[in-house]
């Protein structure tokens, strides 16, 4: 868990963001380290976590999060963590090919996730996972992958809307990752803007404009959308970050003319 990021955003183990959607977006870089942060953060707070991973295998998350101080394997055995292996499910469906009607109660309906190229099955499975729990966290890695696999932009927008409704009704939080270098089809609403619409927090990660540097890895911008109360101006918090094996260091951008 990245302490400095929590301090900046005003989160703590007692003040978890609930009922919200958090969007992590990146441009030409890989912001998946933030997913590990949320995994570790919520598991340390003893919340239930649903990890739907389509981009990496479970071992990757397990080993990466072990440096952050949580044991995903143990959490999975306890029941605190539900890991939906979309990577293997996609492979199985690709190789097997056929789409039979299975009852929704079985876990195998995941295999037919990509059957009709919409995300309805995935939504139903996620809904079932957080049914009777409060303050759960759903992590989906990642949303742009579905666009690459053939899900239409319209279907993705519907999915995000459904997830937002699920969060508000079940009091859970939804975190997902969006790679901004996906070029949208102009005739349909852009999925990135749609995600931004529903997200209460957005963490945007980019490389430095001045080029690659070993000490400062990039720029991290935290955008908060306050839905309660009246706030006339919400500045974005722009920080430079440096990622190490165990932590994320946030640095002030400084007043150099190259930055301002």
């Amino acid at each position, binding site marked *: 868990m990245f302490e400095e990021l929590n301090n900046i955003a005003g989160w703590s183990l007692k003040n978890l963001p609930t009922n919200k959607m958090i969007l992590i977006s990146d441009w030409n870089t890989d912001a998946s380290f933030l997913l590990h942060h949320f995994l570790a953060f919520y598991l340390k707070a003893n919340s239930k976590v649903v990890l739907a991973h389509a981009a990496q295998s479970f071992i990757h998350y397990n080993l990466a999060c072990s440096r952050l101080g949580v044991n995903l394997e143990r959490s999975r055995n306890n029941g605190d963590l539900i890991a939906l292996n979309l990577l293997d499910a996609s492979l199985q469906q690709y190789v097997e090919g056929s789409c039979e009607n299975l009852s929704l109660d079985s876990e195998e309906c995941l295999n037919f996730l990509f059957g009709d190229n919409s995300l309805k099955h995935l939504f139903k499975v996620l809904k079932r996972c957080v049914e009777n729990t409060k303050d759960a966290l759903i992590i989906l890695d990642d949303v742009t992958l579905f666009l690459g696999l053939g899900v239409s932009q319209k279907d993705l927008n519907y999915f995000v809307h459904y997830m937002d409704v699920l969060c508000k009704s079940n009091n859970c939080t939804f975190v997902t990752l969006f790679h901004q270098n996906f070029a949208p089809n102009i005739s349909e609403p852009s999925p990135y803007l749609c995600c931004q619409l529903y997200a209460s927090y957005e963490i945007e990660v980019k490389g430095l404009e001045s080029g690659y540097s070993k000490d400062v890895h990039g720029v991290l911008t935290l955008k908060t959308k306050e839905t309660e109360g009246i706030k006339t101006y919400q500045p974005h918090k722009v920080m430079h970050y440096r*990622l190490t094996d165990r932590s994320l260091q946030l640095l002030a951008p400084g007043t150099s003319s190259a930055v301002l």
Partner: protein
Amino acid sequence: MKKVTFTKRPAKGGAVQVHGTVVSLHNGLLLVSTGIPSLDSVLGGGVPLGSVFLLEEDVHTRFSTLLTKYFLAEGVTSGHGLYVASANVNPNVLLNALPKPTSMSSTRSSQQKNDNDMKIAFMYKDLPKNQSSLSGVSRYGHYYDISCNMDKSEVEKCDLKSLRLTDEISYGEGKNDMFRYTLKHLKQCINNSRYEMPQKNSGDQQLNVLRVVLPHFASPLWCGDKPDNIHNIVRFLHCLRAVARNSMIACLVTIPTHLYHENEVAMIRQLVDTSVELEAFVGEKNPVFKQYHGLLKIHKLPRLNSLVNFVPDSFDLAFELKRTKFIIEYMHLPPDISETASRQGMDETNDKLHPRSACGGVSLNKKLDF
């Protein structure tokens, strides 16, 4: 018992040792060599097991074919299994022309001649990694002579599977299923042999690595007539990643990315673990580039099982094809931070070089005053 393939942990029955692999110094992953020592050092030791390595081809495919041959030759000398699936060229044509491994003594004499030139200090990186021989385990990384071909008997010794995708094979519902057919065939080969991830940590198991090579992948011959080809390619790469993560394989995929739109290429890059592009100089060469034949651009480095990844000292890499070998070198040293060092020559070369993307440039922006 936890799965042991990616990170080497001291297990009860002794450490997992697979010949032709080495444990990475940076993150404990098992690596296989690409066959070119300089490329291995740029990638942090080699290609991690269970990952997909994308080589973005140069326009005339001359150098990418050579790199593919190196990869296959390294597999033969390390005793790994080979799997080649190709739609364009007969895999046997590729396998008949692999570079011949040279013995240690001949390389040492040629190295001495190179040392006298002393052009760039990183020539020393070409020195062999393992000075001492490991008993029973073949060395990691070998040297090859591309002017001679490997003996066919050596190639036949290893476990070789190839797939030639021609019009005679029926793929199912049409040409779009060529991808699916290939993946099914690959998965079958893995299941039939001993390349699956070991479930239990039995120390007596003889583990071996399968090198999967897909040359000229996603070329027009692979793609059907429908406009959503990129989705088929993305789907295949996604499933290939799923297969790779569960098996002892290292994949090399070469794609002619210059045929695709930038956004499609970005999407392809997201689904592979390592992405390296070869840009050969064609036409009039900029004299700044001296004896090099092209640039090597790194677009993505593998970040498996950890938060950070290995980063080479510099991203300005160029390659050169000599008579007997192919080498990759750093183009110039990174700029010296101290004020007194004269950087006039450096600025001239930086101006002449092509403008780079935000993540790859080394040029110092004069506005910075740290």
